[in-house]
């Protein structure tokens, strides 16, 4: 079947849903599919309301800001998704982000920016590798292992520098704040990462294996697949994206605070869950996670526009998670 045929088939299927003669099975599938589109639908509806009610929302600077702001959580959520799919969790993404950011910021002053960025990301990859090793080879529960490294990595950040590091070399920063037409270039980087991970998860062997491990690790082991290596890989990926997020955030803000990223692991987990990922592993999509990221970003942007206190944002976020999980359960 060619790709074009596949798309046509899917469109036809979707159109058929509104026709008659749908069996109960199709009915259940239809409901599941509708639920899968809820986050993105909610995003569009909210955006439409915002466009009508607020003059500032559609302003070039606000939309650009919105996109720039979601990049951090977007990249972290992407890494988090891979770990969650494998049946794990990564609580240490915040400190890994800070670690990469502060190391990278320091090096930006001494080295050409590509080298500094690479080293910053490499540090986060190594940190992710430590998480993976603890989970896969020392058989620690992911929650406990990454809780421990969350504390240890944060400590490491402060050991490296108690005070904020300011990169004086601005070549990387210029790249970060640049735009391609009206779209911030970092948003394009994020989009590329989402496409890449989507391809990785759906169309490569390690990707399918990670899904399967989250679904039933024992079955995967007995099928002759190296479960541990794949778990390790998932945490390395998470570290890598946290690191990349850290470097982009540092450059956007123009300063690397050792405290940066505190609490961000919760936003990343929230985006995955809102996007339909199961914390039990094995279920979740890149598309859904992107929708979760967009929705969370939009809500905080809107509440800022309307001058709502930050505390209410947190309440909102909590309610959203509950709502997402509830609607999904009914659609199942």
């Amino acid at each position, binding site marked *: 079947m060619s790709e074009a045929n596949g798309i046509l088939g899917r469109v036809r299927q979707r159109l058929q849903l509104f026709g008659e003669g749908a069996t109960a099975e199709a009915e259940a599938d239809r409901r599941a599919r509708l639920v899968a589109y809820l986050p993105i639908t909610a995003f569009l509806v909210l955006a439409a309301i915002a466009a009508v009610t607020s003059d500032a929302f559609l302003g070039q600077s606000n939309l650009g800001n919105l996109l720039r702001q979601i990049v951090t959580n977007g990249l972290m959520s992407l890494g988090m998704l891979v770990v969650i799919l494998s049946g794990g969790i990564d609580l240490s993404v915040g400190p890994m982000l800070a670690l990469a950011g502060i190391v990278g910021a320091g090096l930006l002053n001494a080295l050409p920016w590509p080298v500094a960025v690479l080293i910053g990301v490499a540090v986060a990859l190594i940190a992710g590798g430590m998480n993976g090793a603890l989970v896969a080879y020392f058989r620690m529960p992911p929650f406990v292992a990454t809780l421990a490294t969350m504390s240890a990595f944060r400590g490491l950040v402060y050991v490296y520098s108690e005070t904020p590091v300011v990169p004086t070399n601005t070549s990387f920063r210029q790249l970060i704040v640049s735009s391609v037409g009206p779209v911030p270039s970092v948003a394009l980087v994020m989009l590329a990462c989402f496409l890449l991970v989507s391809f990785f998860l759906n169309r490569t*062997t390690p990707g399918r294996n990670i899904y399967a491990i989250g679904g039933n690790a*024992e079955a995967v082991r007995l099928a002759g*697949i190296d479960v541990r290596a794949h778990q390790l890989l998932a945490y390395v990926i998470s570290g890598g994206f946290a690191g990349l997020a850290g470097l982009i955030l540092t450059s956007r803000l123009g300063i690397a605070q050792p405290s940066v990223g505190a609490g961000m692991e919760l936003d990343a987990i929230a985006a995955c869950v809102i996007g339909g990922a199961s914390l039990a592993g094995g279920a979740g999509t890149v598309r859904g996670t992107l929708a979760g990221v967009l929705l969370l970003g939009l809500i905080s942007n809107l509440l800022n526009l309307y001058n709502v206190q930050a505390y209410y944002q947190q309440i909102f976020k909590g309610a959203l998670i509950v709502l997402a999980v509830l609607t999904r359960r009914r659609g199942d």
Partner: protein
Amino acid sequence: MSAVPRLELHGVRKRYDATLALRDVDLTVGAGEVHALAGENGAGKSTLIKILAGAVRRDAGTIALDGAPVDLPNPLAARAAGIRVVYQEFSLVPSTSVTENMLLGRMPARAAGWWIDWSAAHRRAAEAIASLGFEVPDVRRRVGALPVSQRQMIEIAKAMLERPRILILDEPSAVLSTRDLERLFAAIRSLRQSGATIIYVSHRLDEVFTIADRITVLKDGARVDTVATGDVDQGRLVRMMVGRPLGEIYPSRPERAPADPILVVRGLGRHKAFSDVSLELAPGEIMGISGLVGSGRSEVLRAISGADRPDTGEMTLAGRLYRPRSPAEALRAGVAMLSEDRARDGLVPAMSVRDNLSLASFARMTRMLVLRRRIQLALVDEQVRALNVRTPSVAALVKRLSGGNQQKALVGRWLMRGARVLLLDEPTRGVDVGAKAEIYRIVARLAEGGMGILLVSSELPEILGMSDRILVMRGGRVVGRFTRREATEERLLGAAAGVTPEAA
């Protein structure tokens, strides 16, 4: 039945989405009666039980207990009405002791309930189990550390000690040894004597005939008939369940030409599991391994499959030394195992039929790191067609398939991988009679194609119907070897239980 029946169901109906799980079922069970529910998987037995347990609500129909209508909207209500169900899945808390599980909610206490009187608690729990005639385990041990058969007995003991008006046992024997089963039957009989009603659900017809007074047969959600046990034989019961005679279940197999063995096992042993196991398996041969639960049958298969490492002995595969350190190595050598627990060891329920079939063969479908959908579909289609896996599409989630089709999909996983030796551990557990026959045909066809097959099964007819040669294990050792012609149910059972001194 004199007077008012203990339980009376009338026109009970339940619909799940498109399928009518129960179609206006009537059922009458008297006090002091053991009533068996028989039927294939999907016949509606589980749904009926769940309705009585309050776990599922009926859509229509009435239920009366001792003449009084009851509603049973939730499990609590069912329990309050005196209905107690022992499911196949356990409801015990594995991390706590046998005592705590037995006395949950009514632990003996001192100092106004703040202080648990442990010695009294342990004594009381042990006495309670003993009072049923069951073997008493160390009640201080964690339930999770006990073998499955003991856990099942504790589960049943807990339910029986509540003195329910109606006790429902769902496939209680699946994990029980013969001795435990005898104890269970004795306990059931004494419970019946005291006027309790027992509803007994089992796939194993011999058990049904041993213990039940009457049998209700369900098929496709409807009641076929209710008969007194004395009025029917097994053959007729099977016909009622599936609408075809028993003899057609096992395929006829041609005589094999003698050949050099493909798998040779010499003196294989693993600490605390089995010792000194030797066998020679020829290509095209089906070798049955019989024995009671816990006799080490499955452990031998696990060792050959690379899942566990043996301590002693050696194996050769097609003349070459074979020493798998992992399932991956065994698969590479061409040895695959179908585990006894599909859900635990085989299926990835949230993934598609396609991905489940491909799981061991992704490497074959990958070119330059990318999974090629076309190659995958071709390979999957080939197996789905050859094995007749009935699925709405290969993209459907595997959890939506019936047990038999799930099992066929798992067989397909190993065939796609290219197995030369197939290890089957209870391949038809939880599979209905129709799908069973299909799986037997597939296995016979694979053997004809030159594959060597080791078949572990608790069902003697399956062993006798399929095997060319049969090993019997007891206590981790091979205690009997039979050819197909020599073997009878009595001889296999005798060897398994250590009753007759069959030559090893």
